[in-house]
């Protein structure tokens, strides 16, 4: 978890390590950039393409190698990769809007689920339907990507972005500690109750020897699976209204709090990084996306496997994806499209998979032996997509995320659940009205 300055970063950071691909439910469409058969730009074309990335500079190697390959295809085209560590999505989108207004818009925009609504509202993206329809090369890629991923990047029948990677939240558990405690791997349909029981068994020791059953991912992307698996969400289905005072949201917040205060199976989340506690053997389980595996590998930690998120009333979890769009203001739309294709093609997908920050968006890459190599049930990273729901990211996500976490902070410190969530609800409603 690197990057970023101000407060609401944890979520951004978690999701920020995503990436992706694919194409869309593109169909008839609003005047695409190309009509009729698509012809790629000629090899001799001279141009400069600028890419606006929010990703981890750690992804730079992947981008650089794609740029290099692109140079082989188009020797006279220069690619500029610009990395903006994310602070807030509003800020990122603002920056893009400002650049567009100043005639310095990037050609290719990298953005994640959280920023899509905002980007669409600000008319940043070109519909890709024409390309998807007419470019034969798009077809195979499209077929390889889960329609769910694409759906998140489409609006009113048009597809705007091609995902390259995604993350779902799953439960990571320490296999050695489970073994030592004589606990068998739970079934894929395990429940909150089973989860709690196991957590209690694995919570041991005192002081410096304290080991917790579960190190809680404490950021809204990490708390959302509890909401989803309890059949609720911070926002209504259409993302038009907030429902933070929903009875089930309150119930879920209480559950999360009780893990710390009542059951003591989880440490106070502030001041403890679950992704340090877990590989250090100070916690038997944690919740995370694929994005932590790189760090675990680097730390030489291998004794873990993954499980689906436990079920409250429903089996569910959250996913967020990263994707590429062609900027509406781009003067090199075809070239940008060509570059996006390369950013999301099988070869790059494999690199995303190897980089280990997120799950590649194509089934092919996600089922490569390298990707499935470790942990044992690595296929769950991709399979969880089948029951996952996208992160609830309205245009006012920048208000929703901190407001929710403020409420959670209050709840964790022992304040009333109802009134804490009501304040957050009010905050979000006010923002939605503006």
């Amino acid at each position, binding site marked *: 978890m690197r990057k970023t300055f*101000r*407060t609401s970063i944890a979520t951004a950071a978690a999701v920020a390590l995503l990436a992706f691909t694919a194409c869309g439910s593109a169909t008839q469409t609003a005047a695409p950039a190309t009509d009729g058969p698509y012809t790629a730009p000629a090899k001799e074309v001279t141009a400069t393409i600028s890419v606006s990335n929010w990703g981890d500079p750690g992804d730079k190697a992947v981008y650089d190698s794609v740029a290099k390959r692109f140079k082989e295809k188009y020797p006279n085209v220069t690619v500029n990769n610009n990395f903006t560590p994310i602070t807030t999505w509003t*800020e990122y989108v603002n920056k893009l809007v400002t650049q567009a207004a100043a005639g310095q818009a990037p050609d290719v925009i990298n953005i994640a689920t959280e920023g899509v609504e905002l980007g669409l509202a600000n008319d940043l993206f070109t519909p890709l339907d024409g390309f998807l329809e007419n470019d034969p090369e798009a077809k195979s890629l499209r077929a390889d990507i889960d329609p769910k991923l694409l759906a998140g990047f489409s609006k009113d029948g048009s597809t705007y972005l091609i995902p390259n990677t995604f993350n779902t939240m799953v439960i990571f558990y320490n296999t050695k500690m489970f073994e030592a405690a004589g606990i068998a791997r739970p079934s894929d349909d395990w429940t909150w109750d089973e989860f709690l029981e196991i957590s209690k068994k694995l919570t041991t020791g005192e002081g410096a020897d304290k080991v917790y059953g579960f190190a809680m991912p404490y950021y809204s992307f990490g708390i959302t699976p509890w909401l989803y698996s309890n059949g609720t969400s911070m926002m209504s289905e259409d993302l038009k209204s907030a429902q933070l005072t929903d009875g089930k949201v309150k119930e879920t917040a209480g559950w999360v709090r009780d893990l710390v205060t009542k059951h003591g199976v989880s440490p*106070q989340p*502030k001041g403890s990084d679950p992704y340090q506690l877990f590989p250090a053997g100070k916690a038997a389980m944690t919740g995370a996306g694929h994005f932590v595996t790189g760090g675990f590998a680097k730390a030489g930690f291998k004794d873990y496997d993954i499980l689906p998120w436990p079920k409250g009333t429903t089996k569910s979890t959250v996913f967020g994806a990263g994707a590429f769009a062609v900027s509406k203001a781009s003067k090199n739309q075809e070239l940008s499209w060509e570059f996006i294709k390369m950013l999301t093609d099988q070869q790059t997908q494999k690199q995303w998979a190897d980089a280990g920050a997120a799950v590649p968006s194509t089934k092919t890459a996600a089922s490569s032996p390298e990707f499935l190599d470790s942990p044992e049930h690595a296929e769950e990273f991709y399979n969880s997509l089948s029951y996952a729901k996208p992160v609830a990211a309205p245009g006012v996500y920048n208000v929703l995320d*901190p407001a929710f976490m403020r409420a959670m902070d209050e709840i964790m410190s022992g*304040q009333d659940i109802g009134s804490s969530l009501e*304040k957050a609800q009010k905050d979000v409603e006010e*923002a939605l009205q503006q």
Partner: protein
Amino acid sequence: MTMTAPKTALPPAPASGRGRPGHRSAARRREALTGYLFTAPTVIGFLVFILGPLVAALYLSLTKYNILTAPKFIGFDNYARMFRDERLATTYGSTVLYVGAAVVLINGFALLFAVLINQRLPRALTYVFRSAYFFPYLVALVYVSIIWQALFQKDTGILNYYITALGGERIDWLNSSEFSKVSVIIVDTWRNVGFAMLIFVAALQEVPKDMVEAARMDGANEWQVFRRIVLPMISQATFFNITITIIGAFQIYESIIVLTRGGPGDASRSVVMYIAEVAFNKFDMGYASAIAVTLFVIIMLVTMVQFRLRKSWVNNE
């Protein structure tokens, strides 16, 4: 850049009472031009980076502006909105608490240490003490806060270690509604006490010793000497310190970012943090400007009241 001032038309220098001979008016004009040139960089900086933005903030506070579309004039709506804003009330409440605590604690401790240090201690000892107390003030608030947030940790922090060793209960310094504020106050006091102390020490050294001695001869006890002689003599330093601590505490920001991030909820959030959030997270620039203007007005009023009071209770020799 030698200033050989050209004899360009300047506004005629007003006749100063000194009644210089007429033949020197050219020289005076030259001097005036030099004055303007010498002050020009500072004045330009002031206009562009302070006065201009101040006026702009006043204007923005009357608009609705989200950066993406042009500002829309909405009169005093933003100001009216503040009265309905519970988060603003909470953050102002905490800020006022920080200010009150700063005034009392920083100046109280500073005066205590200053009086202690001002005795005839060995020179080296005085130097060591002065240095030790002053050093935190030179270190960025961010850095000292980073150290303190580690010391404040509930389970691993050494503060709680010593508290439990003495038989106390672990305190959740950073994540409880009450103690998060206390932590902010501790760090603020700890860092600023040295500076205020130095001001007091400098003032104490100006207190004429013979006056003190004379009072003692007259049979005054130490407290009476302090209360009747010393305190009035250092009132100017007290005035300065109080003003500085009030202004400083109203702007408290980065220590909270590092220690508690304003939490839990808004429990330890300061107004300045709230302004930054409204402006640069919600991009509600108009409303944020309006809140900032209230902060400006409060600081201005406090300063003015201070100057008024000063006339009545500061001993100006």
